[in-house]
């Protein structure tokens, strides 16, 4: 019971994970693959001039990739949107894809 309480997320969201108690810790890690890239790389500075980095967070049509897809944490996403919008303003990134 106490063990169950320890990770209510995995037990509730994924019923199949419940009976594989031994693997659960590993599985939990596995499922949590969305990790903020900027946190992991300890990149504090998200600069609008760094087009290479920003490109990874812009969809094909030029839209900013939402957090729920890219996995970027909220503070970094805020700075990221800021940087992308600045880059768009100075024609480093497109507002919308051509054609």
């Amino acid at each position, binding site marked *: 019971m106490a063990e169950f309480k320890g990770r209510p997320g995995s037990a509730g969201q994924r019923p199949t994970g419940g009976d594989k108690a031994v693997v659960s810790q590993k599985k939990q890690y596995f499922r949590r693959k969305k990790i903020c890239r900027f*946190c*992991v790389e*300890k990149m504090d500075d998200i600069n*609008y001039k760094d087009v290479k980095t920003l490109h990874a967070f812009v969809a094909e049509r030029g839209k900013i990739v939402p957090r729920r897809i890219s996995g970027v944490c909220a503070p*970094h996403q805020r700075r990221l949107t800021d940087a992308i919008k600045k880059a768009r303003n*100075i*024609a*480093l990134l497109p507002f919308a894809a051509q054609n």
Partner: protein
Amino acid sequence: MRIYEELFIVKPDVPEEEVDQFVEQLRTQLTAAGATVDKVEKWGKRRLAYRVDKYREGAYVLFEFTAAPDTVKELERRLRVSDMVIKFLTVRIDQTRKRLDKRKKQRDKRAAKRAASAPPAPATVPGAPQSAAHAAEAPAMPGQPKEN
């Protein structure tokens, strides 16, 4: 005094000498207004992400300077009036820099603390320096998302 960054795009068909001349002109004007130019960087011709005034590419020039707000206004006016500049962007960077410095200091401090506190616990283990280095790195990653 604040630190600013000015990035502007010059028309691609303007000869190089003229651009240099223009940059020099801006620099002298800035210094005359009491500002100090810290950096001038020419990125050369780059493709624009979208068409600006019928141009598909442009030469980027980056200025970094310390100035009072009024000076920036004047500089922007000059860029707007100039025929060869098609786009410009001014960003104030001193606050961002301050924040980054603070963040870096915190990070260093935390790392130092971790390094200092790690050895006592695995002291019984023979490979102390190795495990200490490992301990300093490993908890930093899962801990990060929460802190931010």
